[in-house]
């Protein structure tokens, strides 16, 4: 009786198992064999710190038959033993082995196609290959040429300025208005607010903002108008404080400097914004400067300032925030104008010389764009040349 029941159960189970399609019922698959990848090449990764070998291969022609990826194996001799050092999914034909144990030693590589439904393919082999470090990054030659060229142009114009050549600078409305803005705060007996941007001192726009702060502080010291400089970055705070203090000393009024005028607020973006909002609402500065790099808070700062009726001058190279400053501020220094400000306000010939250098470099950029287009369109060889000239890895 029990045997029959058991046999019945087995029968039932077999019938059920056979009825549902799927791997449980399917016959064991014949592992397909696929053609291996070919043309494996191994060589030192260029322009790096060493201990990396780059591999390239031509993918298996049978990728469609179930190849899921390629296994990369490495050994210290051609015979092995080989150990797996990497895997890339199918469709790719390159791999950088960045864990090469030592530079200058021979290594051998094998690559094979693998997949769940197939037997691993035969291998493609390459080697020996050696990794090494480079002392010059050839991929950055264009940046090197650019840096040297620009440095030379700047030095040339500074030399010219030193020799007393007169350099013309056109009027920049936002900067011409600085004097007027400081004057207005003085007349109204209200303070001047200066925000040196949201970026740390590591960002050059912050340094540009601090250069402007120096000029504004001198004017504020001259007119004896209180200055309020809230900071977001600790190092920017220390530099800003030194600059303002020195500006008062230079005008000959070191005693007028108020130690509390430059202070640290907070690092939190929105915490800083709420703090500055508070200052604008309570101290009612007559003039607001927003100089440096800004993020989303630009909108809150500029709109709040506009609502308090302050005259506002903004300057930023943050392209996404410029539209908000432009709509809410009386004057906005756009992009490069922020960097031109310290030369414009300081009126020192050497600083103006660099502005001239910037202009010539811009003209050069425009010229290169036109010339490059002409070259690229004139023939495939020249096109390759232009592409190489501008390629960045």
């Amino acid at each position, binding site marked *: 009786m029990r045997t029959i029941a058991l046999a019945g159960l087995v029968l039932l189970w077999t019938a059920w198992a056979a009825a549902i399609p799927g791997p449980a019922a399917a016959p064991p698959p014949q592992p397909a064999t696929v053609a291996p990848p070919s043309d494996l090449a191994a060589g030192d990764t260029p322009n790096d710190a060493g201990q990396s070998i780059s591999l390239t291969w031509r993918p298996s022609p049978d990728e469609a038959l179930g190849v899921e990826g390629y296994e990369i194996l490495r050994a210290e001799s051609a015979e092995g033993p080989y150990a797996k050092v990497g895997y890339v999914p199918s469709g790719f034909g390159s791999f950088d082995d960045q864990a090469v144990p030592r530079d200058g030693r021979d290594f051998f590589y094998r690559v094979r196609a693998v997949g769940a439904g197939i037997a691993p393919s035969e291998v493609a082999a390459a080697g020996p290959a050696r990794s090494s470090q480079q002392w010059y990054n050839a991929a950055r030659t*264009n940046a090197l040429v*650019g840096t040297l060229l620009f440095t030379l142009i700047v030095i040339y114009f500074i030399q010219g300025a030193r020799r007393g050549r007169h350099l013309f600078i056109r009027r920049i409305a936002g900067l011409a208005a600085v004097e007027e803005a400081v004057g207005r705060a003085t007349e109204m007996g209200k303070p001047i607010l200066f925000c040196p941007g949201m970026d740390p001192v590591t960002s050059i726009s912050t340094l540009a903002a601090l250069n402007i702060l120096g000029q504004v502080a001198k004017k504020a010291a001259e007119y004896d108008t209180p200055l309020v400089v809230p900071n977001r970055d600790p190092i920017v705070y220390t530099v800003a404080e030194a600059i303002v203090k020195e500006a008062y000393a230079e005008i000959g009024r070191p005693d007028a400097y108020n130690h509390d005028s430059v202070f640290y607020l907070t690092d939190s973006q929105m915490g800083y914004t709420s703090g500055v*909002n508070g200052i604008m609402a309570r101290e009612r500065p007559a003039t607001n400067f927003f100089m440096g790099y800004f993020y989303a808070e630009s909108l809150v700062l500029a709109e709040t300032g506009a609502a308090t009726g302050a005259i506002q001058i903004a300057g930023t190279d943050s392209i996404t925030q410029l539209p908000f400053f432009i709509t809410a501020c009386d004057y906005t220094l756009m992009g490069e104008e922020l960097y031109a400000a310290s030369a414009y306000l300081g009126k020192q010939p050497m600083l103006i010389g660099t*502005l001239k250098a910037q202009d010539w470099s811009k003209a050069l950029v425009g010229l290169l764009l036109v010339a490059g*287009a002409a070259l690229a369109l004139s023939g495939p060889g020249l096109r390759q040349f232009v592409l190489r000239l*501008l390629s960045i890895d």
Partner: protein
Amino acid sequence: MTMSTDPWVWLAALLSLFIFSYLYKDNPLFKFAEHLFTGLSVGYLIVIYYNNIVRSYLLNPVLADHRWVLLVPFAIGLLYLFRFIPKLSHLMLIPIAITLGIWNGIALPLTIEADIIRQMQGTMINTSMFRNPWDPYTGLAVGILIAVGVICTITYFFFSREHKGALKVSAHIGIWFVMIGFGASFGYTVMARVSLLIGRLQFMFTEWIHLIK
């Protein structure tokens, strides 16, 4: 309609309202929230500084691994504190000079590469544009339009010449491009900001006042 009984949720909701109240006008509740915000965020920054920098890069390596060499940057950092001694306050300039040297050096070639060469690369007219010259994104006509826009925009930023004659025309076209670009940024940002507001309102009406299920 029910309301949350979690005091922390209440705190969060009330403080959010205090911040919102600034939209009406500056008031004692906003002032309180603003000062609390400043305090907590600075406290938070101190914790980050202590745990992630002082502890990881100074205390642990020196005390546990005896990497005494790290006392060198520590000592240079101490120079910042000379600010409080008027006669020696100029020593503070040394760590500042180190900072400026490092970061300006890093920025110089990097900016040339990212802002100049990469942008030139993107602007360059090339033969692939011939394939479909009137394609609105990759065609030759658009390539020329972009190049003209870029060059005119550059001329707007010429400082050493008065905007007169050809330069005036080109700078004027440039400023039009600039304004179209700023408008695009503006319009693009509107929706992003509205979604931030929706996110906050969702908190108020789901977790605090259970109005939305």
